[in-house]
Protein backbone atom coordinates (compact mmCIF):
# COMPACT_ATOMS: atom_id res chain seq x y z
CA UNK A 1 0.00 0.00 0.00
CA UNK A 2 1.51 3.25 -1.03
CA UNK A 3 2.16 5.88 1.58
CA UNK A 4 -0.81 8.35 1.53
CA UNK A 5 1.54 11.34 1.72
CA UNK A 6 3.24 10.17 -1.45
CA UNK A 7 -0.11 9.64 -3.19
CA UNK A 8 -1.30 13.13 -2.41
CA UNK A 9 1.97 14.67 -3.47
CA UNK A 10 1.99 12.74 -6.74
CA UNK A 11 -1.55 13.92 -7.47
CA UNK A 12 -0.72 17.57 -7.02
CA UNK A 13 2.82 17.71 -8.38
CA UNK A 14 3.28 14.92 -10.90
CA UNK A 15 6.41 16.23 -12.62
CA UNK A 16 8.19 17.65 -9.61
CA UNK A 17 9.03 14.37 -7.94
CA UNK A 18 12.37 13.05 -9.15
CA UNK A 19 13.13 10.11 -6.85
CA UNK A 20 11.46 8.19 -4.08
CA UNK A 21 13.22 6.03 -1.52
CA UNK A 22 12.19 4.22 1.63
CA UNK A 23 14.65 2.93 4.21
CA UNK A 24 13.95 1.75 7.78
CA UNK A 25 10.39 3.00 7.54
CA UNK A 26 11.30 6.55 6.52
CA UNK A 27 10.07 8.02 3.26
CA UNK A 28 12.45 10.26 1.27
CA UNK A 29 11.27 12.25 -1.74
CA UNK A 30 13.59 14.19 -4.04
CA UNK A 31 11.92 17.16 -5.69
CA UNK A 32 13.03 19.73 -8.22
CA UNK A 33 14.91 22.63 -6.76
CA UNK A 34 12.74 25.34 -8.34
CA UNK A 35 9.50 23.91 -7.00
CA UNK A 36 10.44 23.58 -3.36
CA UNK A 37 8.33 26.51 -2.16
CA UNK A 38 5.03 25.37 -3.77
CA UNK A 39 5.65 21.81 -2.53
CA UNK A 40 6.33 22.95 1.02
CA UNK A 41 3.36 25.30 1.06
CA UNK A 42 1.11 22.47 -0.12
CA UNK A 43 2.51 20.10 2.49
CA UNK A 44 1.92 22.63 5.23
CA UNK A 45 -1.56 23.76 4.23
CA UNK A 46 -3.24 20.59 2.98
CA UNK A 47 -5.48 19.54 5.92
CA UNK A 48 -4.74 15.83 5.75
CA UNK A 49 -0.99 16.33 5.63
CA UNK A 50 -0.58 19.45 7.80
CA UNK A 51 3.21 19.40 8.07
CA UNK A 52 3.38 22.39 10.34
CA UNK A 53 6.74 21.69 11.98
CA UNK A 54 10.05 21.93 10.14
CA UNK A 55 12.23 19.62 12.24
CA UNK A 56 15.49 20.14 10.45
CA UNK A 57 17.01 21.71 7.36
CA UNK A 58 20.51 20.62 6.57
CA UNK A 59 22.91 19.95 3.77
CA UNK A 60 25.16 17.06 2.78
CA UNK A 61 28.20 17.32 0.53
CA UNK A 62 28.63 14.43 -1.90
CA UNK A 63 31.96 15.45 -3.38
CA UNK A 64 32.48 13.86 -6.76
CA UNK A 65 28.82 13.51 -7.59
CA UNK A 66 27.00 15.89 -9.90
CA UNK A 67 24.98 17.73 -8.50
CA UNK A 68 27.27 18.05 -5.52
CA UNK A 69 25.05 19.00 -2.61
CA UNK A 70 21.83 17.73 -1.12
CA UNK A 71 19.65 20.05 0.92
CA UNK A 72 17.55 17.88 3.21
CA UNK A 73 14.30 18.97 4.82
CA UNK A 74 12.80 16.93 7.64
CA UNK A 75 9.11 17.65 8.09
CA UNK A 76 6.83 16.59 10.90
CA UNK A 77 3.15 17.04 11.54
CA UNK A 78 2.28 17.55 15.19
CA UNK A 79 -1.41 16.85 14.62
CA UNK A 80 -1.12 13.80 12.40
CA UNK A 81 2.14 12.47 13.80
CA UNK A 82 3.74 11.59 10.47
CA UNK A 83 7.12 12.45 9.04
CA UNK A 84 8.64 13.09 5.67
CA UNK A 85 12.10 13.76 4.32
CA UNK A 86 12.34 16.06 1.29
CA UNK A 87 15.54 16.47 -0.61
CA UNK A 88 16.72 18.92 -3.21
CA UNK A 89 19.88 18.38 -5.21
CA UNK A 90 21.98 21.49 -5.79
CA UNK A 91 25.06 22.09 -7.92
CA UNK A 92 27.94 24.09 -6.57
CA UNK A 93 27.01 27.57 -7.79
CA UNK A 94 23.28 27.17 -7.77
CA UNK A 95 21.03 28.58 -5.11
CA UNK A 96 17.88 27.21 -3.53
CA UNK A 97 14.72 29.22 -2.89
CA UNK A 98 14.41 29.90 0.81
CA UNK A 99 11.47 28.39 2.70
CA UNK A 100 11.44 31.03 5.44
CA UNK A 101 8.16 32.23 3.99
CA UNK A 102 6.66 28.83 4.77
CA UNK A 103 8.18 28.11 8.20
CA UNK A 104 10.15 30.74 10.12
CA UNK A 105 12.25 27.95 11.61
CA UNK A 106 14.18 27.82 8.36
CA UNK A 107 15.77 31.19 9.05
CA UNK A 108 18.63 30.04 11.26
CA UNK A 109 18.86 26.60 9.66
CA UNK A 110 19.50 28.10 6.23
CA UNK A 111 22.03 30.50 7.65
CA UNK A 112 23.91 27.55 9.10
CA UNK A 113 23.83 25.64 5.81
CA UNK A 114 25.13 28.73 4.04
CA UNK A 115 27.82 29.19 6.67
CA UNK A 116 29.16 25.67 6.77
CA UNK A 117 28.51 24.45 3.23
CA UNK A 118 28.27 27.57 1.12
CA UNK A 119 24.85 26.99 -0.43
CA UNK A 120 23.01 30.24 -1.05
CA UNK A 121 19.29 30.69 -0.45
CA UNK A 122 17.24 33.17 -2.49
CA UNK A 123 14.97 35.61 -0.69
CA UNK A 124 16.34 34.81 2.71
CA UNK A 125 15.76 37.81 5.03
CA UNK A 126 19.25 37.82 6.53
CA UNK A 127 21.72 35.44 4.88
CA UNK A 128 25.01 35.74 6.73
CA UNK A 129 27.32 33.53 8.71
CA UNK A 130 26.02 32.30 12.01
CA UNK A 131 28.42 30.03 13.87
CA UNK A 132 31.67 31.18 12.30
CA UNK A 133 33.05 34.74 12.47
CA UNK A 134 31.98 37.03 9.62
CA UNK A 135 35.46 37.24 8.17
CA UNK A 136 36.07 33.48 7.99
CA UNK A 137 37.00 32.19 4.55
CA UNK A 138 35.85 28.84 3.32
CA UNK A 139 33.08 26.47 4.25
CA UNK A 140 34.27 23.89 6.79
CA UNK A 141 31.70 21.15 6.38
CA UNK A 142 32.61 20.64 2.72
CA UNK A 143 34.56 17.47 2.08
CA UNK A 144 37.49 19.34 0.54
CA UNK A 145 37.99 21.51 3.62
CA UNK A 146 40.66 19.72 5.67
CA UNK A 147 40.18 18.66 9.28
CA UNK A 148 43.23 20.49 10.51
CA UNK A 149 45.22 19.89 13.60
CA UNK A 150 47.24 22.82 14.85
CA UNK A 151 50.22 22.29 17.12
CA UNK A 152 49.69 23.49 20.71
CA UNK A 153 51.88 26.48 21.56
CA UNK A 154 53.98 26.25 24.68
CA UNK A 155 56.93 28.37 25.76
CA UNK A 156 59.38 26.09 24.01
CA UNK A 157 57.85 26.66 20.60
CA UNK A 158 56.35 30.10 20.99
CA UNK A 159 58.81 31.81 18.72
CA UNK A 160 57.77 30.07 15.54
CA UNK A 161 54.36 29.87 13.83
CA UNK A 162 52.31 26.72 14.69
CA UNK A 163 52.66 23.68 12.44
CA UNK A 164 49.38 22.63 10.86
CA UNK A 165 48.81 19.01 9.86
CA UNK A 166 45.78 17.69 8.08
Amino acid at each position, binding site marked *: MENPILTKLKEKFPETILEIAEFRGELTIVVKREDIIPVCTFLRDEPELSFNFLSDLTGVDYLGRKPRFDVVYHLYSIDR*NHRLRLKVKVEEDESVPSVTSVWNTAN*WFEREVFDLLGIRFDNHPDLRRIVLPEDWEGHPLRKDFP*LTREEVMFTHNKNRPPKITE
Partner: protein
Amino acid sequence: MKPQVSNRIERIDTHTMILNMGPQHPATHGVLRVILELDGETVVKATPDIGYLHTGIEKTMESKTYAQVIPLTDRMDYVASLSNNLAYLLAVERLLDIQAPPKAQFVRVLLTELTRIASHLVWVGSHAHDIGAMSMLLYAFREREKLLDIFELVSGQRMMTSYFRIGGLAQDVPDGFEPKVKEVLDTFPDRINDYENLLTKNRIWLNRTVGVGKISARDAIDWGVSGPILRGSGVSWDIRKSNPYSGYDKFNFDIPTGKNGDVYDRYLVRLEEMRQSLRIVGQALDGIPEGDFVARIPGVVLPPKEEVLSNIEALIFQFKLVVEGFSPPVGEVYHSIESPKGKLGYYIVSDGSNKPYRVRVRPPCFVNLSALPKMIEGRLIADVVAVIGSIDIVLGEVDR
Protein backbone atom coordinates in the same frame (compact mmCIF):
# COMPACT_ATOMS: atom_id res chain seq x y z
CA MET B 1 7.99 90.47 32.09
CA LYS B 2 6.19 87.18 31.82
CA PRO B 3 7.93 84.42 29.83
CA GLN B 4 6.27 83.32 26.64
CA VAL B 5 4.79 79.85 26.96
CA SER B 6 4.46 78.14 23.68
CA ASN B 7 1.39 76.05 22.90
CA ARG B 8 3.25 73.77 20.56
CA ILE B 9 5.27 70.91 21.98
CA GLU B 10 8.77 70.99 20.63
CA ARG B 11 9.86 67.81 18.96
CA ILE B 12 12.74 66.22 20.82
CA ASP B 13 14.96 64.02 18.73
CA THR B 14 15.32 60.50 20.10
CA HIS B 15 17.69 57.80 19.02
CA THR B 16 17.63 54.17 19.91
CA MET B 17 20.64 52.85 21.78
CA ILE B 18 22.48 49.72 20.88
CA LEU B 19 23.49 47.78 23.95
CA ASN B 20 25.73 44.78 23.67
CA MET B 21 24.93 42.02 26.13
CA GLY B 22 28.35 40.65 25.52
CA PRO B 23 29.65 37.13 25.36
CA GLN B 24 31.04 37.45 28.89
CA HIS B 25 27.93 37.95 30.93
CA PRO B 26 26.85 36.12 34.04
CA ALA B 27 23.24 35.82 32.94
CA THR B 28 23.64 34.44 29.47
CA HIS B 29 24.54 30.92 30.60
CA GLY B 30 27.63 30.63 28.52
CA VAL B 31 29.11 32.64 25.72
CA LEU B 32 26.07 34.15 24.09
CA ARG B 33 26.01 37.64 22.71
CA VAL B 34 22.71 39.47 22.31
CA ILE B 35 22.72 42.82 20.51
CA LEU B 36 19.86 44.82 21.97
CA GLU B 37 18.47 47.93 20.38
CA LEU B 38 16.75 49.90 23.09
CA ASP B 39 14.32 52.77 23.06
CA GLY B 40 14.60 53.90 26.66
CA GLU B 41 14.06 50.65 28.51
CA THR B 42 12.02 48.94 25.81
CA VAL B 43 13.72 46.43 23.58
CA VAL B 44 13.05 47.33 19.97
CA LYS B 45 15.18 44.64 18.40
CA ALA B 46 17.20 41.75 19.80
CA THR B 47 19.70 39.86 17.70
CA PRO B 48 21.42 36.85 19.20
CA ASP B 49 24.95 36.31 17.93
CA ILE B 50 26.22 32.80 18.51
CA GLY B 51 29.23 30.79 17.51
CA TYR B 52 31.61 31.48 20.35
CA LEU B 53 31.64 27.83 21.36
CA HIS B 54 31.71 26.28 17.88
CA THR B 55 34.13 23.38 17.85
CA GLY B 56 33.19 21.64 14.62
CA ILE B 57 31.77 18.53 16.25
CA GLU B 58 29.82 17.49 13.15
CA LYS B 59 32.97 17.60 11.03
CA THR B 60 34.97 15.70 13.64
CA MET B 61 32.36 12.99 13.76
CA GLU B 62 33.00 12.26 10.09
CA SER B 63 36.50 11.14 10.89
CA LYS B 64 35.72 8.78 13.77
CA THR B 65 34.21 5.30 13.73
CA TYR B 66 30.65 4.89 14.92
CA ALA B 67 31.68 3.82 18.41
CA GLN B 68 34.26 6.58 18.74
CA VAL B 69 31.61 9.23 18.13
CA ILE B 70 29.85 8.49 21.43
CA PRO B 71 32.13 10.65 23.65
CA LEU B 72 31.71 13.53 21.20
CA THR B 73 27.97 13.46 21.66
CA ASP B 74 28.26 13.99 25.44
CA ARG B 75 29.92 17.29 25.00
CA MET B 76 27.21 19.06 23.15
CA ASP B 77 24.52 19.38 25.77
CA TYR B 78 27.01 19.00 28.56
CA VAL B 79 24.45 19.36 31.30
CA ALA B 80 22.41 16.33 30.23
CA SER B 81 24.97 14.09 28.66
CA LEU B 82 23.19 10.75 28.85
CA SER B 83 20.30 11.91 26.72
CA ASN B 84 22.69 12.95 23.94
CA ASN B 85 24.22 9.48 24.03
CA LEU B 86 20.81 7.91 23.85
CA ALA B 87 19.75 10.01 20.86
CA TYR B 88 22.83 9.12 18.85
CA LEU B 89 22.72 5.44 19.73
CA LEU B 90 19.05 5.06 18.90
CA ALA B 91 19.76 6.53 15.47
CA VAL B 92 22.68 4.13 14.90
CA GLU B 93 20.62 1.19 16.15
CA ARG B 94 17.89 2.12 13.70
CA LEU B 95 20.47 2.24 10.91
CA LEU B 96 21.70 -1.24 11.85
CA ASP B 97 18.13 -2.42 12.57
CA ILE B 98 19.02 -3.86 15.98
CA GLN B 99 17.36 -3.42 19.34
CA ALA B 100 18.81 -3.27 22.81
CA PRO B 101 17.63 -6.02 25.18
CA PRO B 102 14.88 -5.19 27.74
CA LYS B 103 17.23 -4.79 30.68
CA ALA B 104 19.32 -2.28 28.79
CA GLN B 105 16.22 -0.40 27.71
CA PHE B 106 14.96 -0.08 31.27
CA VAL B 107 18.31 1.10 32.59
CA ARG B 108 18.59 3.55 29.72
CA VAL B 109 15.18 5.02 30.54
CA LEU B 110 16.03 5.22 34.22
CA LEU B 111 19.30 7.04 33.66
CA THR B 112 17.86 9.33 31.01
CA GLU B 113 15.10 10.42 33.36
CA LEU B 114 17.65 11.07 36.10
CA THR B 115 19.52 13.17 33.56
CA ARG B 116 16.34 15.10 32.85
CA ILE B 117 16.02 15.87 36.55
CA ALA B 118 19.68 16.89 36.72
CA SER B 119 19.28 19.21 33.74
CA HIS B 120 16.14 20.81 35.16
CA LEU B 121 17.93 21.33 38.46
CA VAL B 122 20.68 23.27 36.75
CA TRP B 123 18.01 25.22 34.96
CA VAL B 124 15.97 26.10 38.05
CA GLY B 125 19.09 27.01 40.00
CA SER B 126 20.58 29.31 37.40
CA HIS B 127 17.28 30.80 36.26
CA ALA B 128 16.24 31.71 39.79
CA HIS B 129 19.72 33.04 40.48
CA ASP B 130 19.55 35.33 37.47
CA ILE B 131 16.20 36.71 38.53
CA GLY B 132 17.57 37.34 41.99
CA ALA B 133 16.66 34.35 44.16
CA MET B 134 20.26 33.43 44.71
CA SER B 135 19.90 30.68 47.25
CA MET B 136 18.08 28.45 44.74
CA LEU B 137 21.35 27.87 42.94
CA LEU B 138 22.93 26.25 45.95
CA TYR B 139 19.89 24.13 46.80
CA ALA B 140 19.61 22.85 43.24
CA PHE B 141 23.27 21.95 43.02
CA ARG B 142 23.13 20.19 46.37
CA GLU B 143 20.47 17.85 44.98
CA ARG B 144 22.36 17.47 41.73
CA GLU B 145 25.34 16.11 43.67
CA LYS B 146 23.35 12.98 44.54
CA LEU B 147 22.52 12.42 40.89
CA LEU B 148 26.11 12.96 39.83
CA ASP B 149 27.12 10.37 42.43
CA ILE B 150 24.84 7.87 40.71
CA PHE B 151 26.35 8.66 37.32
CA GLU B 152 29.82 8.26 38.76
CA LEU B 153 28.85 4.92 40.22
CA VAL B 154 27.71 3.47 36.90
CA SER B 155 30.18 4.98 34.50
CA GLY B 156 33.07 6.42 36.45
CA GLN B 157 32.35 9.97 35.31
CA ARG B 158 30.13 12.65 36.75
CA MET B 159 29.30 14.60 33.66
CA MET B 160 30.53 13.20 30.35
CA THR B 161 29.31 9.73 31.10
CA SER B 162 29.29 7.93 27.69
CA TYR B 163 27.74 4.99 29.50
CA PHE B 164 25.58 3.66 26.68
CA ARG B 165 26.95 1.67 23.76
CA ILE B 166 25.56 0.46 20.48
CA GLY B 167 23.18 -2.32 21.44
CA GLY B 168 22.89 -1.54 25.14
CA LEU B 169 25.12 -0.45 27.98
CA ALA B 170 28.89 -0.42 28.37
CA GLN B 171 28.86 -2.56 31.52
CA ASP B 172 26.30 -4.09 33.79
CA VAL B 173 24.89 -1.88 36.55
CA PRO B 174 27.05 -2.21 39.67
CA ASP B 175 25.79 -3.41 43.04
CA GLY B 176 25.21 -0.19 44.91
CA PHE B 177 23.01 1.23 42.16
CA GLU B 178 19.57 0.31 43.44
CA PRO B 179 19.98 1.62 47.02
CA LYS B 180 21.31 4.93 45.71
CA VAL B 181 18.44 5.41 43.30
CA LYS B 182 16.01 4.43 46.05
CA GLU B 183 17.51 7.12 48.25
CA VAL B 184 16.96 9.74 45.55
CA LEU B 185 13.38 8.56 45.09
CA ASP B 186 12.71 8.86 48.81
CA THR B 187 14.21 12.28 49.43
CA PHE B 188 13.61 14.13 46.19
CA PRO B 189 9.85 14.81 46.26
CA ASP B 190 10.27 16.81 49.46
CA ARG B 191 12.94 18.89 47.81
CA ILE B 192 10.75 19.77 44.89
CA ASN B 193 8.06 20.80 47.34
CA ASP B 194 10.65 23.02 49.02
CA TYR B 195 11.40 24.72 45.73
CA GLU B 196 7.71 25.25 45.12
CA ASN B 197 7.29 26.77 48.54
CA LEU B 198 10.11 29.16 47.85
CA LEU B 199 9.10 30.32 44.41
CA THR B 200 5.68 29.40 43.10
CA LYS B 201 3.54 31.78 45.15
CA ASN B 202 6.31 34.24 45.85
CA ARG B 203 5.12 37.72 44.97
CA ILE B 204 8.43 38.87 43.58
CA TRP B 205 8.75 35.75 41.43
CA LEU B 206 5.22 36.23 40.10
CA ASN B 207 5.91 39.85 39.28
CA ARG B 208 8.99 38.98 37.33
CA THR B 209 7.75 35.99 35.45
CA VAL B 210 4.00 36.16 34.85
CA GLY B 211 3.19 37.65 31.48
CA VAL B 212 6.87 37.93 30.53
CA GLY B 213 8.27 36.47 27.32
CA LYS B 214 4.99 35.19 25.94
CA ILE B 215 4.90 33.21 22.77
CA SER B 216 1.69 31.87 21.32
CA ALA B 217 1.39 28.22 20.33
CA ARG B 218 1.09 29.14 16.66
CA ASP B 219 4.24 31.23 16.69
CA ALA B 220 6.09 28.60 18.66
CA ILE B 221 5.32 25.92 16.09
CA ASP B 222 6.18 28.29 13.27
CA TRP B 223 9.56 29.04 14.82
CA GLY B 224 10.25 25.35 15.47
CA VAL B 225 10.28 25.64 19.25
CA SER B 226 9.97 22.33 21.07
CA GLY B 227 10.21 20.98 24.57
CA PRO B 228 9.01 22.71 27.75
CA ILE B 229 8.61 26.04 25.94
CA LEU B 230 6.12 24.59 23.47
CA ARG B 231 4.35 22.74 26.25
CA GLY B 232 4.21 25.96 28.26
CA SER B 233 2.32 27.52 25.37
CA GLY B 234 -0.31 24.81 25.55
CA VAL B 235 0.73 22.31 22.86
CA SER B 236 0.79 18.89 24.41
CA TRP B 237 3.49 17.23 22.32
CA ASP B 238 6.10 15.00 23.88
CA ILE B 239 8.07 12.60 21.72
CA ARG B 240 8.13 10.06 24.54
CA LYS B 241 4.36 9.74 24.08
CA SER B 242 3.91 10.36 20.36
CA ASN B 243 6.79 8.21 19.06
CA PRO B 244 7.97 6.11 22.01
CA TYR B 245 11.55 4.86 21.91
CA SER B 246 13.59 2.59 24.13
CA GLY B 247 10.53 1.14 25.85
CA TYR B 248 8.87 4.37 27.01
CA ASP B 249 5.47 3.00 26.04
CA LYS B 250 5.65 0.66 29.04
CA PHE B 251 5.70 3.50 31.56
CA ASN B 252 2.88 5.63 32.94
CA PHE B 253 3.49 9.33 33.11
CA ASP B 254 1.71 12.60 32.30
CA ILE B 255 2.77 15.52 30.19
CA PRO B 256 2.36 18.88 31.94
CA THR B 257 1.28 21.82 29.81
CA GLY B 258 0.85 25.49 30.52
CA LYS B 259 -1.71 27.98 29.33
CA ASN B 260 -0.18 31.34 28.63
CA GLY B 261 3.24 30.58 27.24
CA ASP B 262 5.08 32.91 29.56
CA VAL B 263 8.12 32.36 31.73
CA TYR B 264 6.02 31.34 34.73
CA ASP B 265 4.28 28.59 32.81
CA ARG B 266 7.57 27.20 31.61
CA TYR B 267 8.79 27.15 35.19
CA LEU B 268 5.70 25.22 36.30
CA VAL B 269 6.01 22.80 33.38
CA ARG B 270 9.61 21.99 34.20
CA LEU B 271 8.95 21.50 37.90
CA GLU B 272 6.12 19.13 37.11
CA GLU B 273 8.32 17.31 34.61
CA MET B 274 10.76 16.63 37.42
CA ARG B 275 7.97 14.97 39.38
CA GLN B 276 6.89 12.89 36.38
CA SER B 277 10.49 11.85 35.81
CA LEU B 278 10.62 10.60 39.38
CA ARG B 279 7.51 8.57 38.67
CA ILE B 280 9.20 6.96 35.68
CA VAL B 281 12.37 6.28 37.67
CA GLY B 282 10.30 4.56 40.34
CA GLN B 283 8.56 2.35 37.81
CA ALA B 284 11.84 1.54 36.07
CA LEU B 285 13.59 0.66 39.28
CA ASP B 286 10.85 -1.71 40.37
CA GLY B 287 10.71 -3.54 37.11
CA ILE B 288 14.26 -3.96 35.76
CA PRO B 289 14.04 -7.26 33.89
CA GLU B 290 16.68 -9.96 34.05
CA GLY B 291 18.91 -10.50 31.10
CA ASP B 292 21.95 -9.29 29.30
CA PHE B 293 22.92 -5.64 29.31
CA VAL B 294 23.88 -5.52 25.63
CA ALA B 295 22.62 -7.18 22.44
CA ARG B 296 25.16 -9.85 21.56
CA ILE B 297 25.60 -9.18 17.86
CA PRO B 298 29.06 -10.41 16.84
CA GLY B 299 30.08 -7.87 14.23
CA VAL B 300 28.88 -4.82 16.11
CA VAL B 301 29.15 -5.32 19.86
CA LEU B 302 32.33 -6.17 21.74
CA PRO B 303 32.35 -9.78 23.01
CA PRO B 304 32.47 -10.42 26.78
CA LYS B 305 35.91 -10.09 28.33
CA GLU B 306 36.14 -13.70 29.56
CA GLU B 307 35.69 -14.96 26.01
CA VAL B 308 38.23 -12.51 24.64
CA LEU B 309 40.86 -13.86 26.97
CA SER B 310 40.18 -17.51 26.17
CA ASN B 311 38.68 -17.80 22.69
CA ILE B 312 40.65 -16.80 19.59
CA GLU B 313 37.59 -15.88 17.60
CA ALA B 314 36.37 -13.44 20.22
CA LEU B 315 39.85 -11.96 20.33
CA ILE B 316 39.79 -11.36 16.59
CA PHE B 317 36.36 -9.73 16.79
CA GLN B 318 37.49 -7.51 19.64
CA PHE B 319 40.58 -6.42 17.75
CA LYS B 320 38.72 -5.69 14.53
CA LEU B 321 35.93 -3.82 16.25
CA VAL B 322 38.22 -1.60 18.26
CA VAL B 323 40.67 -0.85 15.47
CA GLU B 324 38.38 -0.72 12.45
CA GLY B 325 34.82 -0.58 13.64
CA PHE B 326 31.89 -2.05 11.78
CA SER B 327 30.32 -1.06 8.47
CA PRO B 328 26.57 -0.46 8.52
CA PRO B 329 24.43 -0.67 5.37
CA VAL B 330 24.25 2.30 3.01
CA GLY B 331 21.37 4.60 3.84
CA GLU B 332 20.25 7.45 6.03
CA VAL B 333 18.20 7.64 9.19
CA TYR B 334 16.72 10.35 11.31
CA HIS B 335 15.77 9.69 14.89
CA SER B 336 14.73 12.18 17.52
CA ILE B 337 14.16 11.98 21.25
CA GLU B 338 12.72 14.27 23.87
CA SER B 339 15.77 15.69 25.56
CA PRO B 340 15.31 17.99 28.58
CA LYS B 341 15.67 20.95 26.23
CA GLY B 342 13.33 19.84 23.46
CA LYS B 343 13.45 17.73 20.33
CA LEU B 344 16.97 16.42 19.84
CA GLY B 345 17.40 14.71 16.49
CA TYR B 346 20.26 12.89 14.80
CA TYR B 347 20.46 12.50 11.02
CA ILE B 348 23.10 9.96 10.06
CA VAL B 349 24.10 9.30 6.46
CA SER B 350 26.07 6.13 5.94
CA ASP B 351 28.03 5.31 2.81
CA GLY B 352 28.87 1.77 3.88
CA SER B 353 32.27 2.54 5.37
CA ASN B 354 33.23 2.31 9.03
CA LYS B 355 32.93 6.06 9.58
CA PRO B 356 29.67 8.00 9.25
CA TYR B 357 29.53 10.07 6.07
CA ARG B 358 27.56 12.86 7.69
CA VAL B 359 26.17 13.25 11.18
CA ARG B 360 23.79 16.11 11.68
CA VAL B 361 22.63 17.04 15.15
CA ARG B 362 19.33 18.88 15.27
CA PRO B 363 19.96 20.99 18.37
CA PRO B 364 16.87 22.01 20.37
CA CYS B 365 18.61 24.95 22.04
CA PHE B 366 19.67 26.44 18.68
CA VAL B 367 16.10 26.49 17.41
CA ASN B 368 14.60 27.64 20.70
CA LEU B 369 17.10 30.49 20.83
CA SER B 370 16.10 31.64 17.35
CA ALA B 371 12.66 32.43 18.79
CA LEU B 372 14.19 34.81 21.38
CA PRO B 373 13.53 37.99 19.32
CA LYS B 374 9.87 36.99 19.07
CA MET B 375 9.62 36.67 22.84
CA ILE B 376 11.49 39.76 23.88
CA GLU B 377 10.73 42.50 21.40
CA GLY B 378 8.50 45.13 22.92
CA ARG B 379 9.36 44.17 26.50
CA LEU B 380 11.63 45.83 29.02
CA ILE B 381 15.32 45.19 29.20
CA ALA B 382 15.01 43.70 32.67
CA ASP B 383 12.92 40.90 31.17
CA VAL B 384 15.67 39.84 28.77
CA VAL B 385 17.46 37.93 31.50
CA ALA B 386 14.31 36.17 32.63
CA VAL B 387 13.44 35.11 29.08
CA ILE B 388 16.93 33.88 28.20
CA GLY B 389 16.88 31.85 31.38
CA SER B 390 13.50 30.36 30.60
CA ILE B 391 14.62 29.14 27.18
CA ASP B 392 17.20 26.98 29.00
CA ILE B 393 20.05 27.15 26.55
CA VAL B 394 23.27 25.25 26.74
CA LEU B 395 25.77 26.89 24.44
CA GLY B 396 27.59 23.67 23.67
CA GLU B 397 24.49 22.50 21.85
CA VAL B 398 23.69 25.83 20.22
CA ASP B 399 27.10 26.14 18.62
CA ARG B 400 28.30 22.55 18.50
